[in-house]
């Protein structure tokens, strides 16, 4: 313990009275200072609290989406078909617009004063140089589509306009700008449009999207999502995850303080397609050429399609629909969209997987397959091929005569020859036997359905149509023209229905994609493949590296295990059709390398305006060096399949097997149906 020593120098004791006074003075100063604080607090917290509470409320956090770059879409060779480009979009936050949006698409000048919200829209329309009416329509439509969230207007904005608005914030309350990614199509110049119906497009997430189960997962309330095609089907992979920036803003919307990145955006996966952009380009060109050939033959051809698919796994290499359009119609400023959506030829309705048409003679191998499987047609069986046929089950007094495409009898023949010369009456007999066997229009249909007809092919891009395989139930359910008596007859399933269907006519409707699936089954021995365009999901930003488990190879729908004899006979028949002297597309494929197996089709589609019109079809395959390709070509109102459709297919085969050689388009010769 330390003992207190006396100080080294004598220290006089402090004078107690003045010290006490000085201490008290210090106390008074302290009291005064603390008093000032208390008074100020009283003033702030009790007297003027309201005005500051308002300020506290107005001090709001604004959350910005920081969009994630959407995954790129590449073709099978790594060509970037769809990419992103950063741009600015103008947003209107209805909740922050000044009071008074009670105005319609037209606005009188005097109303701007009492409807301040409309005033903002009107000024914005003026700045963006769009008619106010359009601005209003778009704003109200989008505001309804996703209520409570800022509306991203689809008008293009440039830096100058942005600056103008931001410098006059008080005039544009509720208007904000957002960085967005827009889809770009880098290969557009090199390869032309790569079927925009298949690629689809991206748009603002709407209330409908949020309810749509096809998105597989919960969409964010804000942002963009694929709205069709591949963009929609693979949206959950492509979209990535938007980031968020939080910023404090004052009541005028001016940022106060720093902005914070509260969530970093996560880029979407890239997607590699099975599509070969080069082949797609050639296929697109070929359909156009097919239409021109038909025109040269005096046919009123208007649209067409071609599908090129790997028959072993359903990977689609090319799927063209003509006329096509630029995918830029889906990207602001939507140049040319009006023309596309008003066109009578409906380019946005895909002819390859959405349009369904009578199949014509390309359907004959399917009839043969069904008859074989049902035991109606025996292996190697010879049937007569007369010039006309009357159903054995026709109970009407006046029998219906079913004509062959030529009035001349071609004599007895087996299935291969019947396919080669496309004898109609041969298949009429099969159809008639189907009717005789069950009479209810079910057994024939059952086999056709197994081949993929009558139901939508499971195309991964979505939107594929089912077409129609008519049966007694279907017929009874339809409303037919005519008197009640006529209608009652029309609703009956008659021998003619089976007979017409046997050559791909009647009420049968198929899409070129379904044809490609069915022909693939003939080629591969019975595997009904799942057609798909997605090949692999790639790491974000990578054009080669597949994400784990990212390979897309959908399993076949079913395997029919077609008998080898049948496959062989059909093969012979299709070889004959492309090579024999009396083959229907020998003119095009006779000297073609590699060997092509295929069938023409000429489906009669008489209308009042065009009584002799027919749809031109060609379907078949070729293989070389372990690579196989099924091609289905279709020219609407294209006349004979061997004339206008076969060259389209030939061009696609050439582009696939010998990409460097240029195909010279010539019209084929074909008088069959």
């Amino acid at each position: 313990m330390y003992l207190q020593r006396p100080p080294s120098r004598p220290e006089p004791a402090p004078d107690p009275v003045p010290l006490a006074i000085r201490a008290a003075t210090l106390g008074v100063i302290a009291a005064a200072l603390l008093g000032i604080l208390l008074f100020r607090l009283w003033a702030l917290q009790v007297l003027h609290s309201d005005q500051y509470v308002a300020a506290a409320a107005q001090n709001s956090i604004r959350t910005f989406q920081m969009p994630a770059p959407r995954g790129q879409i590449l073709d099978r060779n790594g060509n970037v078909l769809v990419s992103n480009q950063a741009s600015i979009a103008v947003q209107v936050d209805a909740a922050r617009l000044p009071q008074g949006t009670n105005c319609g698409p037209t606005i009188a000048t005097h109303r701007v004063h009492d409807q301040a919200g409309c005033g903002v829209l009107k000024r914005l329309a003026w700045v963006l140089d769009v008619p106010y009416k359009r601005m209003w329509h778009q704003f109200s439509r989008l505001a309804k589509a996703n209520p409570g969230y800022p509306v991203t207007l689809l008008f293009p904005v440039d830096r100058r306009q942005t600056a103008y608005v931001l410098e006059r914030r008080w005039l544009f309350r509720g208007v904000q700008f957002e960085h967005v990614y827009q889809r770009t199509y880098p290969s557009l110049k090199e390869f032309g449009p790569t079927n925009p119906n298949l690629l689809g497009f991206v748009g603002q997430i709407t209330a409908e999207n949020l309810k749509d189960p096809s998105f597989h997962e919960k969409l964010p309330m804000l942002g963009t999502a694929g709205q069709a095609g591949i963009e929609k089907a693979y949206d959950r992979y492509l979209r990535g995850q938007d980031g968020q920036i939080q910023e404090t803003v004052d009541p005028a919307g001016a940022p106060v303080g720093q902005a914070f990145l509260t969530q970093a955006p996560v880029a979407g996966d890239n997607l590699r397609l099975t599509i070969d952009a080069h082949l797609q380009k050639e296929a697109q060109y070929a359909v156009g050429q097919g239409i021109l050939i038909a025109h040269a033959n005096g046919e009123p051809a208007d649209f067409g399609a071609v599908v090129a698919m790997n028959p072993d796994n359903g990977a689609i290499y090319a799927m063209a629909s003509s006329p096509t359009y630029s995918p830029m119609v889906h990207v602001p400023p939507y140049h040319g969209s009006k023309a596309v959506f008003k066109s009578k030829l409906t380019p946005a309705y895909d002819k390859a997987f959405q349009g369904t048409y009578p199949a014509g003679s390309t359907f004959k191998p399917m009839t043969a397959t069904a008859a074989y499987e049902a035991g109606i047609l025996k292996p190697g069986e010879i049937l007569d091929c007369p010039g006309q046929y009357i159903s054995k089950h026709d109970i009407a007094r006046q029998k219906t005569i079913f004509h062959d495409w030529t009035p001349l009898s071609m004599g007895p023949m087996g299935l291969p020859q019947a396919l080669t010369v496309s004898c109609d009456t041969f298949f009429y007999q099969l159809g008639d036997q189907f009717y005789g066997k069950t009479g209810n229009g079910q057994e024939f249909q059952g086999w056709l359905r197994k081949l993929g007809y009558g139901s939508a092919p499971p195309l991964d891009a979505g939107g594929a149509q089912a077409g129609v395989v008519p049966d007694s139930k279907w017929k009874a359910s339809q409303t037919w023209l005519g008197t009640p008596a006529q209608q009652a007859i029309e609703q009956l399933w008659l021998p003619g229905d089976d007979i017409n269907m046997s050559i791909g006519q009647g009420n049968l409707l198929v899409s070129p994609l379904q044809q490609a699936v069915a022909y693939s089954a003939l080629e591969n021995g019975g595997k009904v493949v799942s057609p798909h365009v997605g090949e692999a999901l790639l790491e974000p930003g990578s054009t080669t590296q597949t994400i784990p488990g990212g390979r897309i190879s959908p399993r076949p729908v079913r395997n029919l295990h077609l008998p080898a004899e049948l496959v062989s006979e059909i093969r012979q028949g299709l070889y004959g059709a492309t090579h024999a002297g009396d083959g229907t597309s020998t003119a095009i494929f006779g000297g073609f390398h590699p060997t092509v197996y295929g069938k023409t089709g000429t489906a009669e589609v008489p209308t009042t305006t065009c009584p002799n019109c027919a749809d031109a079809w060609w379907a078949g395959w070729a293989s070389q060096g372990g690579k196989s390709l099924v091609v289905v070509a279709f020219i609407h109102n294209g006349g004979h399949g061997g004339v206008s459709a076969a060259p389209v297919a030939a061009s696609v085969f050439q582009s696939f097997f010998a990409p460097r050689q240029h195909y010279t388009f010539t019209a084929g010769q074909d008088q069959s149906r």
Partner: protein
Amino acid sequence: MTHYVRHLDYLMLATALSISAFGLWIMQSATKNYAGNLYGHQLMYVAAGTVGMLAVAAVPPVLMRRVRWPLYAFVLLSTAAVLAVGTSIGGGRRWINLGAFQFQPSEFAKLLLIVGLAAVLASRRGVSSPARLTLLAICYVGLPALLVFKEPDFGTMLVFLAIMLGMLFVYGIPWQHFVWMLLAVCVIGALIFSVLPGMGITVVQEYQVTRLTSFLHPNPNDVQSGGFQLRQSVIAVSHGGLGGTNNDASVPGQQLGATQTSLGFLPEAPTDFVFAVVGEERGFVGAAWLICLYALLLWRGLKVITKSRSTFGSLVAAGVVSMLLFQIFINIGMTIGLAPVTGIPLPFMSFGGSHTITNLLAIGVLQAIHVHAQAADEPVFAV
């Protein structure tokens, strides 16, 4: 030992601990937006400071008085060391990194200067003329003040000066000296802010000037100046109203709670602007209660001035009271827009180890003086 226990100023002790507890309570909500366990750290600091306070209370003031020059040397060395090896946090080098924790010498320097200056003045009492004493005090405090100013820590420099003025006042130097000092401050101020910059010598950084003056004409959109912080804190304080918003969002009718604090609008909520959190969450009632606690503490400090039987004790108490008063006034004043935005923490409330411990030790020094002033009535064998 018995008279140590008997003569502690328990009211002062309770007040200091109450304020510290209040600070911890507020810390829980003020640190919502901060990573890491700031509350736990602060709890540790308060515990350490309390132990230190009780220990220091047992030290005889005479002993403190003897070590004035080593203390002074330590002050100069440590503040100079900051300039040499200091760690930069938030724009100023104020910390020395000692591995596990960081140590802010300028905080400890406050207390050490009080003790040192009191010892110097007390030992020269009746020896030197008042004018020389004033000059001595100015030099004594001026050197470390210049060093912390260089860090730059303008706030702590002001605290040093406030301590010096308070001690000189209680010491009883003639009032004319204060007039001279005021004149000198005016001249120096003119030099720093006008003449020297005019000659192209920058003494004070631009941001320091704007921070200091922004409370006079706040520009709420300027993040760099203190205007933004000031506006946010004034809004937060007012938002509290009479009874506070509470921080419990589950209370019916108060779904939003203390939005300014909890949503992160309030900058530096656990440190310099902790009073704004008190104001928002506890309202006028809570804020006034806190100020009353401070008043009580200051009153106990002032009592020590008069109770002390030595000039040294009185001066130390005067220094501690001046230090606390100045920091309280400037910090709360800053929060409610009455004083410039300077980095002066609120005693016992703001987050921070160095100043929490320093303030508790300062209370310990007051206690020591209190204990030993009482003890002087009893036998000389202290402790």
